[in-house]
């Protein structure tokens, strides 16, 4: 068994921050496995190459958004604008390519830059006036969506297959987009657990005043987290364009809730100070497998929503119960 040297199993400690014990991961993996088994029993088509290949190609946007949201929740913030920022980035790309005749790479970079800017705006206003990011990002949600409509004249803009390579499977039904999303996850987990930046984020989420009085200015770090969230929303926009071959100003509508649900199912705390990108990945898989499985067994749209909602609530109840039991020691 691989354990880090500084975490002795005998020590009676309630750990937090980025320490998500093996138990957490096993629990999440177990829940995922149970769902897969259940759907396989309910539908003979579920356990197939096609199902998982489709899944792998649909979730990269959710994966990268959830990574960004994990960071945002860790510093005790929330970003409701991610779906709209995704649409804004996609619309920007479509304007650059179709309107101005730009080539793919600069257009993609512009789209991500615009998304990063949106995130920076959210972060800067939140920090400068000490306003809850909930409200600021709610405003940015509306503005970004409005801009997306304006850029595209409220119509879906067909871009064609310029981005198709992103989502065309290269091996075992897996696309470059999925691989990029996986790399983002691995990199983000390393940043969170192994870097000074990651440590500051956990500190800020745990006790921002203590961090400030320790001689660290928390503000640039907070802005950076929202900017990163923007960049990842831009990346998710590129994934969507490549899959749909179009930029849809309605894209990502309501997606922020799906993203937050995935992160919270993974066990990242809405109160800040505690989170893991790996467990967020499990959260994304759980919510996606659930959606795919329900579709396969022919559940109606209302049924799907009711069941998905119940799963979110149960996951949070279980996680809260678990962490309470751990903290009763205090």
């Amino acid at each position, binding site marked *: 068994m691989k354990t880090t040297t*500084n975490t002795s199993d*005998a020590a*009676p400690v309630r750990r937090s921050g980025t320490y998500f014990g093996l138990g957490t991961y096993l629990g999440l993996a177990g829940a995922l496995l149970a769902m897969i088994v259940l759907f396989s029993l309910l539908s003979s088509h579920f356990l197939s190459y096609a199902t998982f290949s489709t899944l792998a190609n649909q979730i990269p946007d959710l994966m990268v958004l959830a990574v960004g949201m994990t960071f945002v929740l860790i510093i005790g913030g929330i970003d409701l604008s991610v779906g709209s920022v995704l649409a804004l980035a996609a619309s920007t790309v479509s304007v650059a390519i179709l309107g101005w005749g730009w080539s793919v790479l600069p257009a993609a970079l512009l789209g991500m830059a615009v998304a990063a800017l949106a995130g920076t705006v959210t972060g800067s206003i939140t920090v400068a006036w000490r306003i809850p990011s909930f409200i600021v990002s709610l405003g940015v949600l509306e503005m970004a969506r409005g801009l997306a409509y304006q850029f595209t004249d409220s119509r879906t803009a067909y871009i064609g297959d310029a981005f198709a390579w992103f989502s065309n499977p290269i091996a075992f039904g897996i696309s470059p987009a999925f691989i990029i999303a996986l790399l983002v996850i691995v990199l983000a987990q390393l940043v969170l657990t192994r870097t*000074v930046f990651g*440590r500051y984020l956990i*500190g800020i989420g*745990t006790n921002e005043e203590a961090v*400030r*009085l320790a001689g*660290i200015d928390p503000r640039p770090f907070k802005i950076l987290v929202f900017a990163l969230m923007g960049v990842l929303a831009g990346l998710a926009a590129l994934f969507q364009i490549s899959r749909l071959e179009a930029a849809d100003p309605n894209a990502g509508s309501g997606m922020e809730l799906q993203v937050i649900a995935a992160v919270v199912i993974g066990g990242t705390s809405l109160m800040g100070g505690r989170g893991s990108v790996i467990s967020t990945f499990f959260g994304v898989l759980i919510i996606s497998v659930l959606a795919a499985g329900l579709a396969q067994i022919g559940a109606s749209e209302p049924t799907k929503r009711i069941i998905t909602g119940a799963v979110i609530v149960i996951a949070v109840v279980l996680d809260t119960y678990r962490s309470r039991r751990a903290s009763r020691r205090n």
Partner: protein
Amino acid sequence: MSVPANETVLAVSGLGKTYAQPVLGDVTLELRGGEVLALTGENGAGKSTLSKLISGLEIPTTGQMLYRGQPYAPGSRAEAERLGVRMVMQELNLLPTLTVAENLFLDNLPSRLGWISQKRLRQLATAAMAQVGLDAIDPDTPVGELGIGHQQMVEIARNLIGDCHVLIFDEPTAMLTAREVDLLFTQIERLRQRGVAIVYISHRLEELQQVAQRIAVLRDGKLVCAEPIQRYNSEQLVNLMVGRELGEHIDLGQRTIGAPLLKIDGLSRGDKVREVSFEVRAGEIFGISGLIGAGRTELLRLIYGADRADSGQVALGQPPVPVTIDSPKAAVKAGIALITEDRKGEGLLLSQSISANIALGNLGAVSRAGVLDADAERELAERQIGAMRIRSASPAQAVGELSGGNQQKVVIGRWLERDCQVLLFDEPTRGIDVGAKFDIYGLLAELARQGKALVVVSSDLRELMLICDRIAVLSAGRLIDTFDRDHWTQDQLLAAAFAGYQKRDALLHDAAPRMDA
């Protein structure tokens, strides 16, 4: 309804609590009606655990309890309270946006069909408040508008409502003014005469001797004694607590006090800090005394850049040159450290490990190109755990699980790694047991020997007189006077502390004066 004095109300036998390690073992003790039992011991000795077991907040691992002749095993605090066993916690459990009256009767608001009967509520509240001498306060005042001392009295009043046979006070006077302490003691005496069994937890030996008849001392989770308090003098009690002798004087070693290192000139902020100027020399321990609310904490925060000064100048170095300190970050860069008064709220990441807390602010030293080196971080933590004698299971243990003294050592350890020239200590020994206090004094002396300039704020005048080379006294935001060692008396220092309040009635001041000496 007087219960015969000395009748056992609650008896615990063989009581123990084990988490991963035993924290309380085999305690056998009787609580008697009409008696105040002082419960004392070093932090981490098990006082809180014992009181939590009795008041239903924790379930014992071993042992039994008998309450008024019946087996007693409360599953929750609510159950214990229903039976008449209550505890006044150190932390305030009040809702600041609700009124005093609403807070007092929150669990049982007088109402008809859900409509609150305001008149009845006010009557009940007025009666309950009179019991603790809060007559002067309007029951319709929102609790958040009261000073901390008054809030604590509200908390106490709330626990006195209803049936009460056993009442536990956990460090009730930590935030009270002298006048409020007197009120509290009067109230405790009245309850005692009514036959209530009272447990009074505190470190303040003078208070224990004043209020209690019997004393129980815990050390390392074991009961060392439970006997009439008159049998011991203060020194003997301290010895019982720590298990070793402590003198009234401490040897701070040979120090050479050099040239000025920190120069404060005309520092002001609102009416909290007014035109304060002083100098601290290298190797000097400079005390700041004053009443609560005199502006001591505010002054330190200004020097550290945690708040912005309206005017004034801070100069540093040898010779001191003016520096601009507009944020804690700038202060740290300039070589100033602040060890805050509220270590849980402002100093520590409680849920994080010891190593993460020590490394916070030193991450540059344990990382390369922004990537943390886990081994270097652990070495750093182990170095400070060893040097500071921090009692802990491992560097990975969460700081929130440590005792107050060990938590304070973690905060100090963080700054020792940074080699700051000026260290500002705000109440460095508050809520810390005697043994750990002397560890901290030794540490302050060591820092002074290294030629650093130390500023120490404390409410404990005797502590300042023990360790400081000079003591400045703040009163109502002004620096009234500075006294040299051997040229001060307790009376002079106290007189200076009151000097700034003479024009108004000091007792009406929100955070009214209190001096622990």
